[in-house]
C-alpha cells in the first residue's frame, strides 16, 4: 500500500482505517498444536470465517510462528524461545478499543478459542458476563502485545466495510440487470431500469462473508484471505 502524508495517516492509521499488528506468545507446545487446529477449523464457519461476524474488520490474518528459517549459507539451526501467534488486521475505527469491543461483542467464543491459548489472556468468561469489562480487559491485552506500525495492508483506506458491501451489492445487481435486459429496446429498458433502481434502493444490504453468486475464494496461493 502507499502511505499518504495527509491527515488520517500516521502511526497505525491510514485514511479511516486502523492497522493492528501484534505478536502473542503461545502458552506451550500443546496450545500451539491446538491453536493450529483452531485456525484450520475457522474454514468450517458457515460464512467462511469467524471474522464474518465482526463487521468492522476488513482483512485479518492469523499466523502461528514457531520457527526461524535461517536465510543464507551455511544453513544453521535457529530457534524461538516461545511460539507466537501473529495477528494482523485493518478495521474501521480509531483505537484498539474499537477492535476489542467489536470482537468481544460479536465473536466472543472465537476470541476465547484463539487467544485463550496465548499467555496472559485475561478474559475468563466465568461468572456473569460483563461485556464492557471484558472489552476493556481484552483491549488492554491487545495493546500489551501490539507492534506499532505505519506500514500495513489496507486495500481501501477511505471506505468502510458497509460502504464496500453496498458497492458490491450494486455491482452484482447491475450486472444481473444488464445480463437480463441488454437487448431490450430503449423505452422498455428505461422503464425496467427505473423499476430496478427502486427495487435496489429498497433491498437489504449485504452482510460480510455472505455475497450471493460468488464462489468462495482465498487469495489462492499462501494464506487464505479473511473474511
Amino acid at each position, binding site marked *: 500500500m502507499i502511505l499518504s502524508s495527509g491527515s488520517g495517516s500516521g502511526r497505525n492509521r491510514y485514511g479511516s482505517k486502523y492497522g493492528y499488528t501484534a505478536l502473542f506468545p503461545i502458552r506451550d507446545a500443546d496450545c500451539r498444536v491446538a491453536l493450529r487446529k483452531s485456525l484450520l477449523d475457522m474454514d468450517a464457519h458457515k460464512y467462511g470465517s469467524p471474522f464474518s461476524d465482526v463487521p468492522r474488520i476488513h482483512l485479518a490474518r492469523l499466523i502461528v510462528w514457531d520457527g526461524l528459517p535461517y536465510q543464507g549459507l551455511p*544453513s544453521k539451526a535457529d530457534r524461538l524461545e516461545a511460539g507466537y501467534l501473529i495477528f494482523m488486521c485493518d478495521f474501521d475505527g480509531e483505537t484498539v478499543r474499537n477492535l476489542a469491543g467489536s470482537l468481544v461483542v460479536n465473536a466472543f467464543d472465537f476470541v476465547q478459542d484463539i487467544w485463550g491459548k496465548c499467555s496472559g489472556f485475561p478474559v475468563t468468561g466465568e461468572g456473569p458476563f460483563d461485556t464492557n469489562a471484558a472489552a476493556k480487559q481484552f483491549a488492554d491485552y491487545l495493546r500489551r502485545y501490539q507492534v506499532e506500525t505505519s506500514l500495513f495492508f489496507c486495500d481501501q483506506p477511505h471506505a468502510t466495510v458497509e460502504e464496500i458491501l453496498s458497492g458490491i451489492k450494486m455491482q452484482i445487481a447491475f*450486472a444481473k440487470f*444488464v445480463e437480463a435486459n*441488454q437487448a431490450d429496446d430503449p423505452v422498455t429498458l428505461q422503464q425496467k431500469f427505473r423499476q430496478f433502481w427502486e427495487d435496489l434502493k429498497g433491498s437489504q444490504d449485504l452482510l460480510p462473508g455472505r455475497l450471493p453468486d460468488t464462489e468462495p475464494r482465498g*487469495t*489462492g496461493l499462501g494464506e487464505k484471505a479473511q473474511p
Partner: protein
Amino acid sequence: MKKLNLSNIQGNILRGYRSFTRARFLYFSVRKAEAGRAFIGRLLDEELITAAQWKEKPDCAVNVAVSAGGLLAMNVPAESVYTFPPAFCEGMKVRATGLGDTGESSPANWDRPWRSDHVHVVVMCYAETERSVNEHARKVRGMLPDGIRELSPAQKAHQIIKDRLALEHFGFADGIGNPVVEGMPSSNERRGGANLVAPGEFVLGYPGIGGEEPHAPQPRALVHDGSFLVLRKLSQNVQMFRHYLHEQEAVLKRVDQRYGAGFLAAKMVGRWPNGTSLIKNPDASGDGIPDNQFDYRLDPQGSACPLGAHIRRSNPRAALGLGGLLSQRRLVMRRGIAYGKFVDEHEVPDDEDRGIMFLAYMTNIERQFEFLQRQWINHGDDLDQGNDKDAIIGDNNGTGRMVVPGDERTGRAPVLLTRLPRFVGVRGGEYLFAPSLSALGLLAENLVELSF
C-alpha cells in the same frame, strides 16, 4: 552489459524454434540416480542437446528439463534442491487450487502420465518433419539405461500453419507478443532498439529489468544460464467456443448489428485472427502482418481493445503506468505448440482432444507465471474487471462475464458477454528447470555440491 552465453543456454528459451514445425515430448521417471545421470551424460556425449546458438542448423533440436523430483532422484543434494523456490519444489499439482486447476482440470483428472506418475525428466524434440522427430525420439529412447523408465504416452505436437501464420485451435495467430530480449542478435532491428527486456527475466545469472540479478538457487554453477520452464497441456474445446459465440451473437446483435461471432471472438482475444491488433484496427481486421508495436495508453476505456481482452489481461503493457515496468515484471517467454487435429472454420469439430502444449520460460515461477494466472487471468481487480476472469483461458464455470466496452467514435453500444464456460482445460503439467549445457554436465558427473 554481461554477454549472453548462448552456447551454454539451451535452445528455445531466448530464441524460438519457428522453423521446426513438429515436436515430440518424451517423459521419464528416474528410479536409480546413476541411471538418470547416465542418461543425461549420453545425451551430452552424443551432442544431441541443442544450445541457443548453433554453428550449423541441426536436423532436430533436442532439449531437456528436470523437475524438482528429478533433481532429487538424481541425487542432487537436498540442501541444493531446497534453495529452489517453493513453487518449483512443491510442483504444479500442489499449486493446483491457486492456479485454478480445479474441477475437471484438477490433477486427479489429468491425462497420463501426469495424473499418476512423477515426471522427472522431459526431453523435447523439435524438427521440420515428422520423420526426423521420430528418428530422434527413437535415438533418445535407445540411450535409456536400466533404472530409468519412459512414461507413456509421449506427446506429439505440431505448428498449425495457415497463410504463413502459426495458429492455435480457436483460429487465432499465436506467439506474436513475445518480448524481445536485450543482447540477443537481431534484437535491435526487431524493436528499433526500444522496449527491450533484460535477459535476467528469462535466464538466471543476468540482471533483470530492475538491474538486479534475480534470486537464484544454489549452487550458481547448477543454475546460471538455466531457466524455469512451466509446461502445461491445455485442452481447447473448439466446439464449445464456437457454440458460445453463436449463442451470444444471437442476443447481442439485437443491441448492435456489429456484434457478430467473429467480432466478439476478436474482442475476447484482443487481436483479429490474423494477428493484427485491435488497437490499430478497432473496427475490422487489418490486412497486414501481426503487429506488436502498440500500447493501451490511448485506449483507457477499452473502446478498441476491451480491458478484459485476453492479451490485455496477460500483458497490460503501459496501461498500469510506470512506462510498462509493472507489466514487464510479469512477462514470460512463451514457446507453446499445438497438439491435435486442426478444425477449419467450415468443418464441424469432432470429439478428439486438441489444444496447446503451453511452454513458458522465466526466472521466477511465482512472480511471473503464478502471478499472471492468479491475479490477471483468474481475477480482474488490477484491471478494473472485479471478479471477472479471462474469457478465453480463465477457470470460468458457466457464470463468467466479460464487459465489451462501447465506442463513442462509431456509436457502438457496450455489451456484456454472459454465462462464460471454461473453454480451456488443464490436462497435465509440471514446473521444470532447463539447466545450461554445462550444468547438465555437472548433473551427469554427479558434481553438484554446495561449498561453504
